[in-house]
């Protein structure tokens, strides 16, 4: 995956580039807003990671310009400003996701990978199948090895999100944001409890594990 990182903190940037390389992605770096905008509009990237406060040109205006030019490359906004309103401004300007500094690299990586997938055409898919597990969005049926599994509405949405991003790490905050539509930071292991319930329904008593816990990161269906 080809990633452009626009970030003025060189140390943070070099660490991030290195980590993205290790994760198997090709990443370029721009240290200011003007250079970043020039690179983003002249080259093809799968995902743009844009810091909100940049020298010479701020992140929001870069995103607005790109969107005005019909460039729909997914954008992850990085910002030290993490309040509800900041997030709303960022997403309104055309950002696809918003991550507050300081962040865990695993969180950033998971979000970048999900964003890259978002631009690919599986968005409208109605049927997902992973291993022996299948989920149909239209009939709202879930089956494991041919057996019907009854899920609560929220459990269904949880599994739907995980299956849509099968093979990708999904973090707890991503689940909270996308399945519950809240952006707060729970102190307790609230998501884990839901996941263990879901797991007991889709994995327990079947051969082979489909729902995996990724240590220090989140969950993955594969």
């Amino acid at each position, binding site marked *: 995956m080809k990633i452009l990182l626009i970030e003025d903190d060189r140390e943070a940037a070099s660490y991030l580039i290195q980590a993205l390389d290790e994760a198997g992605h090709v990443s370029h770096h721009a240290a200011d807003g003007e250079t970043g905008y020039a690179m983003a509009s002249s080259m093809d990237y799968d995902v743009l990671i844009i810091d909100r406060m940049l020298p010479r040109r701020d992140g929001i205006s870069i995103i607005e310009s790109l969107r005005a030019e019909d460039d729909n490359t997914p954008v992850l906004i990085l910002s030290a400003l*993490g*309040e*509800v*309103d900041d997030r*709303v401004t960022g997403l309104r300007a055309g950002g696809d996701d918003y991550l*507050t500094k*300081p962040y*865990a690299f695993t969180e950033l990586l998971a979000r970048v990978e999900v964003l890259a997938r978002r631009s690919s055409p599986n968005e409208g898919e109605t049927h997902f199948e992973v291993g022996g597990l299948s989920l149909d969005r239209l009939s709202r049926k879930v089956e494991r090895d041919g057996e019907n599994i009854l899920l609560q509405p*929220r459990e269904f949405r949880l599994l739907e999100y995980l299956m849509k991003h099968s093979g990708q790490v999904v973090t707890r905050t991503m689940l909270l944001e996308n399945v*519950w539509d*809240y*952006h*707060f*930071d*729970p*102190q*307790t*292991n*609230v998501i884990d*409890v*839901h996941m263990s*319930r879901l797991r007991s329904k889709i994995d327990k008593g079947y051969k082979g594990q489909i729902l995996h816990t990724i240590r*220090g990161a989140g969950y993955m269906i594969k």
Partner: protein
Amino acid sequence: MAYQSSIQIQRSQTVEIEREIRELVRLEKVRGIRSVANVVQKLARRAGPGIYYLGDEKGRKLVGNVSNFPMEVLTQNGIHTFNYSIEQALPDNIGNNTKGVGYALVSSRKLKGGFRLIVGRDIVERRGYTSIIFRGFLFGVIGIVILSLITGGITAKRVLKRIDSISDTTDKIMSGNMSQRVPITKRNDEFDRLATSLNDMLDRIENLMSGLKEVTDNVAHDLKTPLTRMRSKAEAALRKGVSAKDQRAALQATIDESDQLIRTFNALLMISRVEAGTPSGSFASFDVSEVAKDMAELYEPVAEDAGIELILKTEKEVSIYANRELIGQALVNLIENAIKYAGGGKAKNKKIVLSVGEENKNVRIEVSDNGVGIPKEDRERAVERFVRLEKSRTEAGSGLGLSLVRAVAKLHKGEFYLQDNKPGLRAIIEIPKDKQ
């Protein structure tokens, strides 16, 4: 004006002179010229500004107090004004001796037999009037000027004194004495109103400052502790002879500590942002019971794992104009708090009741548990930033949860308070239903 009144005076004197002339002419008709001469002589002797003359057809004076009239006065009937020399002192009514040159207003009339009758007034009197009036005006003007200077001076001095007292106070405040207040008098004038609003503002600033100071102190304590822990963990991992496995564990512990620190910072930032007031653009109308339902559903498994029953009581739809994220966050804080503390109670069936309802014009969001509760004397303090009541000092958490709830309630012009649930704690948020 002075000129106007002197004309007025001249006019009234002319009328008087004409009246005297008419009387004397009538006297001449009834009693003859001799009587007229007698009366004129008497009148001429009287002190005052009167000018009386009776002469023969050749212009010689028979009786009177003035003789050197100009020719036209002696030959032409009517009103004349002229300078003349006074033969006899005519003390005017302001005490000036007018001997010398006079100025006269006279009426001249030819009588039967060629006699000429002249009646008039010395205009010095009129001039006197004019000068009296002028002097009056002058005194008046000077008086007004002096009076206004004095009153202006007094007012200015009073105003300056009041302003000085305000600037004195601000000086003292700027030099660090925040408890100073602008003195208020009993007059209840504009200055007092200004002083009152200044004092209100100062109260607010002082509150904020003392809040800030308290927070800084607490930040120092609550952030330094984990930082110290983190540092010593890293240091220990660097020591010789530490296995790679232990080093990894130490690094993981460092990350966990820093995550907790970040969480605390985020909570702090959020509180200060909320207290400063987020722009109302983030406000919208939504159903609070829907949010409560989401939260109950989210936390129900967590509560269940902790052996606590989470019960949701909501009315059909409770619409509110608010910031959905913040209301959600406040609810989460209350629920997490309840789960944390409900476990410690003696009640057999531990439960948390989450209810949303309308009361009067308020939306009431309530989270109650039957756990250990908070003693009455500690309830106020429990809402303060960083306060974890002694017993729970060792529990995980930033001690910011309830402060954020209060900040959120205040942002929505509402209230947040804690009550005894007998046993347990009842946390209540009340927010006005109306659009703000």
